[in-house]
């Protein structure tokens, strides 16, 4: 069982549609991070959420941290082919050790 469970594992949508990716845990995190990874590249940090209930926006991406700081979601509005990639959530529940979820692979078709 992974510390961070992501769902769905795979999402295929048409350009212009909306999508939501979830990251859940039974543990409390002081912060959660979201990364995007493209084929052949390393993960790139998108955002860090720190406060329970916090909402952060990055252009068409909206990130939310659960009130209890155990879960987070990523919502993409009007997805574009450039949003295609592997979305990873990561957290550090105890000390200085970042743990990743299994990832959600998103495919946006033109």
């Amino acid at each position: 069982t992974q510390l961070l469970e992501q769902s769905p594992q795979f999402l295929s949508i048409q350009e212009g549609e909306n999508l939501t990716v979830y990251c859940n845990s039974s543990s409390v995190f002081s912060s959660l991070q979201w990364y995007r990874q493209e084929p052949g590249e390393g993960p790139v940090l998108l955002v860090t959420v720190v406060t329970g209930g916090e909402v952060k926006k990055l252009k068409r991406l909206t990130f939310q941290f659960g009130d209890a700081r155990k879960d987070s979601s990523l919502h993409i509005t009007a997805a574009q082919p450039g949003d295609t990639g592997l979305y990873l959530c990561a957290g550090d529940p105890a000390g200085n050790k970042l743990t990743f979820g299994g990832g959600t692979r998103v495919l946006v078709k033109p």
Partner: protein
Amino acid sequence: EAGVAQSPRYKIIEKRQSVAFWCNPISGHATLYWYQQILGQGPKLLIQFQNNGVVDDSQLPKDRFSAERLKGVDSTLKIQPAKLEDSAVYLCASSLGASISGANVLTFGAGSRLTVL
């Protein structure tokens, strides 16, 4: 600033052979990480260095994997002997330390893809 450099980008070996990967972190980043990412999964931490000391190697298969970070800068990860299940991308990352928010922000290299036949 220059990113995290890794080499080689690709390596194909037969089982029981050995392989080494090299990582050069961002200048000034004291913390260096090696992650293993198996196809279709999220990265799994193998080892974490703070300068040239090991902070966490609890998930490193020490019977076949070794890593060092001499002089607290570059690092090498070695696998000897390799098994089929070691086929994965090996990602190196570095960080300056906790940000203002308290979160540790990692910068990753492009990874080294290993195929064991």
